[in-house]
């Protein structure tokens, strides 16, 4: 008889090992899929590895890619800590990029004034966009998964409207992007690298998030609210106000990621400003167990997957393999998590020794 039963949870180290095994399992599943669709998985993974970290340039591009993933991941993680599902990082990023671009295209300020203004507008754009679903969630408990998601489509259509319409670059007929930003609106590169200064946002926000959650009274409220909103209400915590505040902050961080993309990477605003960062962010935060620095680490791993996926395109493998691998990593880690607290027991029950009619108790 085979059955699944609970076991005393295994040690932290063993659980971490199981999680790594999960990642390996995902890569194996991906390899099986690649070879089933007529590709050489060994070659594909090698190409991906080269594309992600094969040269100093590739490694730095992976770091650049990790910035929006880490920022949206941190925002999502903060919301998760309060028990909120912010699936709208995608749209919040776009709205942050929108407001930051508005400053970049409209104000001819020097960099020392323009960049902080753009950063602030990025925060505001993402934060306000997150406030929209936060209000009905706080007042009536409206499911924020669905509302944040639907708003993504609205935000992306809004950016489409801008870059095809009023903000379209007149010199690039019908290409979906704005005219380029002035130099004063471009985030500088970190000295000696090709990584833009948005990386500093990641470090600052990860550090701040860790401190706030572990060491402040407000962070304590957030953790209590996330684990048990009823306990938070019982203790007299301002649950509704915190729901609003957390969603706004979560969206603001995503909006800052949008500012980083337009100012640090692209130098203009364009269609498809976020190729799914907000969705990857959910998986990243979940895999990192909501730990701020863990989120940064997983973001780097996912950035490598995405950039590796792009590198594959030259050899004819669709880049979509990267999304599939992200999903497979989460799936196999979920399987691994189950076996942290359960095991499959194969027992030779006494039933085997019993005469058939005794063992059978058919309805």
């Amino acid at each position, binding site marked *: 008889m085979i059955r699944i039963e609970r076991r005393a949870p295994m040690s932290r180290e063993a659980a971490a090992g199981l999680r790594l095994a999960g990642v390996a399992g995902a890569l194996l599943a991906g390899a099986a899929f690649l070879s089933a669709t007529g590709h050489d998985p060994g070659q594909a993974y090698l190409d991906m590895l080269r594309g992600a970290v094969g040269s100093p340039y590739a490694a730095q591009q992976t770091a650049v890619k990790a910035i929006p993933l880490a920022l949206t991941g941190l925002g999502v993680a903060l919301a998760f800590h309060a028990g909120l599902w912010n699936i709208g990082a995608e749209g919040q990023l776009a709205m942050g990029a929108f407001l930051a671009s508005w400053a970049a295209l409209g104000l001819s300020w020097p960099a020392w004034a323009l960049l902080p203004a753009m950063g602030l507008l990025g925060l505001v754009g993402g934060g306000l966009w997150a406030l929209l679903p936060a209000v009905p969630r706080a007042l009536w408990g409206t499911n924020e998964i669905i509302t944040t998601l639907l708003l993504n*489509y609205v935000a992306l259509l809004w950016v489409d*409207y801008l870059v095809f319409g009023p903000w379209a670059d007149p010199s690039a007929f019908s290409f979906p992007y704005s005219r380029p930003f002035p130099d004063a609106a471009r985030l500088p590169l970190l000295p000696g690298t090709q990584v833009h200064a948005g990386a500093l946002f990641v470090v600052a926000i990860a550090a701040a998030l860790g401190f706030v959650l572990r060491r402040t009274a407000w962070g304590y409220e957030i953790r209590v609210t996330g684990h048990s909103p009823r306990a938070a209400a019982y203790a007299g915590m301002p649950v509704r106000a915190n729901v609003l505040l957390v969603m706004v902050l979560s969206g603001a961080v995503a909006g800052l990621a949008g500012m980083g993309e337009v100012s640090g990477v692209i130098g203009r605003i364009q269609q498809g400003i976020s190729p799914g960062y907000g969705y990857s962010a959910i998986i990243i935060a979940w895999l990192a167990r909501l730990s701020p620095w863990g989120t940064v680490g997983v973001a780097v791993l996912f950035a490598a997957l995405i950039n590796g996926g792009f590198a594959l395109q030259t050899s004819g493998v669709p880049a979509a393999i990267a999304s599939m691998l992200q999903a497979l990593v989460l799936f196999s880690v979920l*399987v691994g998590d189950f076996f942290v607290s359960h095991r499959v027991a194969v027992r030779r029950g006494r039933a085997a020794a019993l005469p058939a009619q005794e063992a059978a108790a058919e309805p």
Partner: protein
Amino acid sequence: MTVHVVLAWLASAVAAGTPLVFAAVGEIVAERGGVFNLGVEGMMLVGAVSGFIVAVHTRDLALAIAVAMGAAAAVALLLAVLTITLGADQAVTGLTLTLFGAGLSSFLGKPYIGIPSPVVFRPVPLPVLGDVPGLGPVLFQQNLLVYASYLLVPAVWAALSHTRPGLALRAAGEDAATADALGLNVAALRYTGVLTGGALAGLAGAYLSLAYTPAWTDNMTSGQGWIAIALVIFATWNPLRAAAGAYLFGGVEALGFRIQAVGGTTPSYFLRMLPYLFTLGVLLVVTMRSRRPGVPGNLGRPYFREERYG
């Protein structure tokens, strides 16, 4: 003239609402059993691409539909194993399933972008019924899949409320521990619900790629899976209300196209926002009126028998 325009609009509301009918009714079956499947969008995409590929290679629409439903159900099986058997969080698994479905469909569909399907579902006006003034052009000059949806909705409604398996599925979704204690196989019921939901999402996807906008493009569902999930809340888990809601949403979507067609000056981006904004608005109104209207009691909760003792 005006009557003609209105009838044409209503007919396109039905055509646009049909994929939502399939997807929402499927999600109702899954959720009534207690599983919140956020992977509808991904399952629809898998159905859309696999149906399209089969149609291109075999020119057999029946086979294409069968494969689309089977493929989406297979993807749903992933969610079923993870959430029902392994007790993984339903929300994160469903969201990831959407990412997976989007990736898989984009991967498989790459070579098929921009080629037309050699076979598509075309409108088949029904004799007699199709000639009824008013009603005929709106309801009965549609394609076969639309007619199938007319049969599906009352069938699922009756199955849920008037049959023994339907009662069992509802019990598994309301109170799994109780259903289990009464000798119902909760896991089997939930698997059935999720796989049925998956198959119907696949059908919704195939409707898009083989009937409504016959072609394959990346992410061609453009959020309809999410609208279907919102529709389930709006419909308070009732298939009849879900169908009515789906046509309403279809009407809103069709309205955008109509306005563009008659040369309206509103930029198309704003018209395309309409279905999402309308969904949001409806969701707010529904939740404002009552906090938990008709939610299956154990929706989203995994069930394991030996977890409690005393």
